[in-house]
């Protein structure tokens, strides 16, 4: 059985529209015009238990809406969804105890005057976590997330990185089996972000949890997600391994060489600076070109690289996938 099954999921809503200006505003009093916004248009995918999938797409593509539907906050307008075998928006307690939805933009809700420990205690009561289990999980989380210095602090006094760590702790204290992470590293500095990434991969390894993660940072996706689901305009545009996506989008590889000579004849030069050259070469010619380069010229250093992921994704967002 799959952990997440989504079939022909659609979500549309009516939003009032009017032109600018006073006249149009007054006009809309009498006759209101609506535009149907199709946030999701028949998207389908499934995620196997224990799989970590990256959910990417430009702003407004429908990622957060999908996650809200999968975690039971919103009722979709069409399609079938099963998460852990149940329909999310029925919001059964047994289901809600097995999932978590953590948002980087607002990692911790509730009263901001409470201390971290008070909030965790409240979660324990809310999610009926037995005390011994609670203590054990808390000890694990303390070690993994470096929580100890935060436990007695008030939520409102935490920095962004600390809030995210606390947000994760609050969500994971009841050991959910399915984790929806919506931009968990948004706004974090490099080391805070990598700490969150390490933590997520550790949690997955320990518990076998299923994860669906959205992020605009390709470092998150590249390090955590063997599989990518790319949505745009409410449709699934790509579903598969990351390497395949970049191969499909960019039929080139980059050869970076250090040489005193001029390798212009071997490929398209896209960068050059004091003896450093970067050549763009079709994927299937990389081996042959490298061989010829090494024979024809005096090369001090050579590396074959994938084009930067950011560039590949940027291209996918702008031009779509063919």
């Amino acid at each position: 059985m799959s952990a997440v099954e989504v079939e022909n999921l659609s979500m549309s809503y009516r939003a009032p529209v009017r032109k600018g200006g006073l006249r149009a505003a007054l006009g809309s009093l009498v006759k209101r015009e609506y535009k149907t916004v199709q946030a999701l248009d028949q998207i389908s995918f499934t995620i196997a238990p224990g799989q970590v999938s990256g959910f990417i797409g430009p702003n407004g593509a429908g990622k957060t809406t999908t996650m809200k539907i999968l975690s039971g906050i919103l009722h979709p307008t069409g399609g079938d969804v099963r998460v852990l075998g149940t329909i999310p928006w029925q919001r059964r307690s047994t289901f809600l105890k097995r999932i978590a939805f953590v948002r980087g933009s607002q990692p911790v809700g509730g009263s901001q005057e409470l201390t971290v420990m008070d909030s965790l205690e409240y979660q324990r009561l809310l999610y009926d976590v037995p005390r011994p289990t609670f203590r054990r999980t808390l000890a694990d989380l303390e070690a993994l997330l470096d929580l100890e210095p935060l436990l007695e602090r008030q939520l409102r006094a935490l920095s962004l990185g600390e809030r995210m760590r606390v947000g994760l702790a609050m969500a994971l204290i009841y050991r959910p089996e399915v984790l929806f992470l919506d931009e968990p590293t948004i706004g974090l500095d490099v080391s805070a972000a990598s700490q969150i990434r390490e933590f997520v991969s550790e949690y997955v390894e320990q518990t076998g949890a299923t994860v669906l993660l959205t992020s605009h940072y390709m470092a998150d996706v590249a390090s955590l997600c063997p599989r990518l689901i790319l949505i745009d305009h409410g449709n699934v545009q790509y579903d598969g391994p990351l390497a395949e996506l970049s191969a499909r989008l960019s039929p080139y590889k980059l050869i970076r060489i250090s040489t005193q000579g001029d390798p212009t004849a071997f490929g398209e030069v896209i960068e050059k600076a004091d003896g450093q050259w970067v050549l763009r070469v079709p994927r299937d010619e990389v081996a042959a070109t490298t061989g010829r380069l090494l024979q024809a010229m005096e090369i001090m250093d050579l590396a074959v690289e994938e084009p930067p992921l950011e560039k590949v994704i940027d291209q996918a967002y702008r031009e779509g996938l063919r």
Partner: protein
Amino acid sequence: MKLLRLVGVGFSMALRRSVAFRVNLLFDVLLAFTGLGTAVAAVLIVFTRADSLAGWSKAEFLVLIGTYQLITGLRATFIDPNLSWFPETGIRNGKLDGYLLQPASSLFLASLSLSSPLALIQFVLGLGVLGWGIAGQSLSVAGVLSWLVLVVAGLVVTWALSVLLACLAFWAPKLQLDVFFHSAWQLGRYPTDVFARPIRVILTYVFPMALIASVPSAALLRGPRLGVLVGGVLAAVAAAGLAGLAWQRGLRRYTGATS
């Protein structure tokens, strides 16, 4: 049971939070005294000129004000922190999304999980005025019991009205009728007998402020009437049912407040 424990924990956490602000505590006490003091003073002044007002004596008026204050105190403690200005404080800042993820009734979480313990001062003062009013009156056990039942019914109706008002947010997110609700609430502190008939009918059947103070006080002072008792309980059940239904329908329409 779990819900009661959640309220308990929430209350204790809120108490810890609010005793930390001593100046706030002082002003809350002062404010509660002034609010109630002016209400009582007005009654005392009126009764220097007359022995009864629309059939209510001074002591009876005090009972009424006490009951009204008691329910207002409970409302301010347990309901208002959750539901007042709901479109702004409950929905737009994403609190509702959080509640919907939690494994407990979302209606309970959204309407009763927060409390502001300091407002209980109003409740205590209300009890005081009530005691003042009933001192020297002869009360029947049946009267006291029916007062209790009707006060509970009044509380349920109060909760349901607040929920219904909050549910408007799902249909008309810009509409905030809290000011209207709070002004209408003030009408509860007078016996319905003082109003003209049309207003009396409205306050009894449409917007049942009569149930908040007039009806329970009359039952306490003049003995229970079966019809009123049944009517009060039925009103509570119906209002609660309606509130639950509106909440469910509202959530169905909910399209999220944050992106």
